[in-house]
């Protein structure tokens, strides 16, 4: 039978953060100084060696580990007589055995559940657990089980505790494709050599990768346009000219620049530093003027870009991108947390609240050293961003007060209308009464008319008779 490349006695992984409640594992890889990754080679069918990830080394055929009890608690809480650890072990071992009969092939849940005696719900949960921990279907491939992720709403990875990152260097390939969403990566991406995966920033932030991975497994790789093909000054000049002429029509701009796609133009434009800071070759003065003019002409454009779009610092660019993805509130909170953490590291300057850049830099696992360097520029950005936020708050307040005023007016009007309504009703009633009286009068008149001649007749007759 196949023997495992499993390091002996199960070393307990560091304790989980108590916030995990669902059966989806947010994995803490066991703290290891050297990345003891059992690197996945393409498994050869004849070999007796099965690969499993290092964070699953606790597994043993005969025992049940505490994380199993945690992730599939239904078998261990004694609620159900049929769900006991023995049954769990039976399911688990059966599933793993079946997988290992043919380790090159990913085993599907349906195959497994057809062969195991038991109720399919529990079997599915055990199966998911095993797959998540790489004990089955672990080929170290880059195929992320996306449908599964979507169904079960696993969005936890971005907040996982930061542990020692990988020490492996990442080679920057020419073209990088995200293995999560299958789009080409541009601005920045995240690579994990451990699992041979590449993710674009979007997927990384959303946690849209295989469940067994941790955000710390990924190292950020900056791919700016400069890496692929550098923008020469001439091209930049063309770009700026085109923007001046065509404004928002990026298609024409791209045409004008020649050789650059729309996206590249836009990205480059965003990355262009503010006019004053643009130092360079002697053409810079012209460029300065152009930039100055352009900046005045398109103040709204700059304002629309976030104040952090100034990408002379690549980390800030990343911050801008991520902060747009994440949203103001989350960024605020994250920034606050990160700021306090930063201050703990011995930097007293940043006691103020809430900005995106420090938080994102923290998340990006930049060294403390580089942090110190960035702090000056982040200070400026801090102030800018603060102003922006205040402005937005003011606008919100104004809008709200406007709305309340209108609501009050509408209320008054309604009250008035109600009064009118009442009056109209009263008048209607009065009119009806008058109508009734009139009718009555008419009746009596008729009555008298008909009665009177009779009376006359009667009296006439009476007189005659007399």
């Amino acid at each position, binding site marked *: 039978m196949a023997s495992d490349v499993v390091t002996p006695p199960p070393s307990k992984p560091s304790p989980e953060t108590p916030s995990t409640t669902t059966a989806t594992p947010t994995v803490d890889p066991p703290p290891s100084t050297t990345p003891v990754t059992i690197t996945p080679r393409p498994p050869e069918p004849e070999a007796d060696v099965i690969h499993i990830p290092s964070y699953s080394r606790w597994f043993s055929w005969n025992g049940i580990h505490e994380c199993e009890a945690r992730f599939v608690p239904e078998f261990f809480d004694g609620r159900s007589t049929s*769900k006991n650890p023995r049954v769990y072990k039976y399911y688990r071992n059966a599933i793993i055995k079946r997988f290992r009969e043919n380790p090159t092939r990913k085993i599907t849940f349906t*195959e497994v559940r*057809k062969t195991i*005696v038991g109720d399919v719900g529990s079997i599915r949960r055990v199966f998911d657990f095993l797959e998540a921990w790489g004990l089955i279907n672990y080929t170290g491939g880059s195929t992320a089980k996306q449908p599964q992720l979507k169904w079960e709403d696993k969005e936890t990875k971005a907040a996982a505790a930061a542990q020692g990152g990988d020490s492996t260097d990442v080679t920057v390939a020419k073209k990088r494709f995200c293995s999560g969403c299958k789009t080409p990566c541009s601005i920045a991406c995240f690579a994990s050599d451990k699992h041979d995966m590449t993710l674009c920033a979007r997927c990384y932030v959303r946690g849209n990768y295989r469940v067994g991975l941790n955000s710390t497994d990924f190292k950020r790789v900056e791919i700016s346009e400069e890496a692929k093909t550098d923008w020469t000054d001439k091209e930049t000049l063309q770009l700026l000219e085109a923007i001046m002429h065509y404004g928002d029509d990026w298609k024409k701009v791209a045409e004008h620049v020649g050789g650059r796609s729309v996206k590249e133009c836009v990205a480059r434009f965003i990355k262009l530093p503010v006019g004053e800071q643009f130092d360079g070759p002697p053409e810079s003065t012209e460029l300065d003027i152009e930039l100055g003019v352009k900046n005045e002409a398109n103040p709204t454009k700059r304002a629309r870009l976030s104040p952090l779009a100034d990408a002379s610092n690549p980390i800030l660019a990343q911050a801008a991108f991520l902060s747009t993805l994440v949203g103001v509130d989350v960024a605020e909170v994250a920034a606050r947390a990160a700021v306090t953490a930063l201050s703990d590291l011995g930097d007293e300057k940043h006691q103020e609240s809430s900005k995106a850049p420090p938080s994102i830099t923290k998340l990006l696992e930049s060294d403390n050293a580089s942090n110190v360097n960035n702090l000056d520029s982040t200070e400026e950005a801090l102030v800018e961003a603060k102003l922006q936020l205040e402005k937005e708050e003011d606008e919100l307040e104004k809008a709200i007060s406007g709305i309340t005023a209108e609501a009050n007016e509408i209320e008054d009007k309604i009250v008035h209308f109600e009064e009118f309504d009442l009056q109209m009703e009263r008048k209607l009633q009065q009119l009806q009464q008058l109508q009734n009286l009139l009718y009555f009068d008419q009746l009596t008149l008729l009555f008298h008319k008909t009665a009177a001649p009779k009376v006359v007749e009667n009296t006439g007759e009476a007189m005659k008779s007399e």
Partner: protein
Amino acid sequence: MKSHAAWGTSKNAVKFRIPTADNLVPIRLDIEIDGQRFRDAFIWNPSDPDSEIVVFAKRTVKDLKLPPAFITQIAQSIQTQLTEFRSYEGQDMYTGEKVVPIKLDLRVNHTLIKDHFLWDLNNFESDPEEFAKTFCKDMDIEDPEVGPAIAIAIREQLYE
């Protein structure tokens, strides 16, 4: 959902449930869409949340590479059978002296199972799963799909 008494005596009325140690429902699927036929049978835990049904349906369709039209059909079928089961649940079930004969007559892949034995309905500790497992082990049955099929067959008859 579990009965109060594990043992129902001859006079006791007990809330309806499958008379086994665990209250699991046998589900049978037989769906045909566009000429494609899908037959399946398995055991379901009715205390699983209903969200589980759709998840299971999607998973099955994906694993077997069926056209997605099957997902709703499968989910509906499961749902109907579950509701049917639950509709019986409120009612009482008389468990008299009930030793019933169970007949197994099924074909799984290439294995033919024919058997006839008695089963005590009163004994709520009984476990068709265990029976199936022991059966397969004792008879040295290679095909692992036989076990679940036996368990399902037994449950269905007990359900009746």
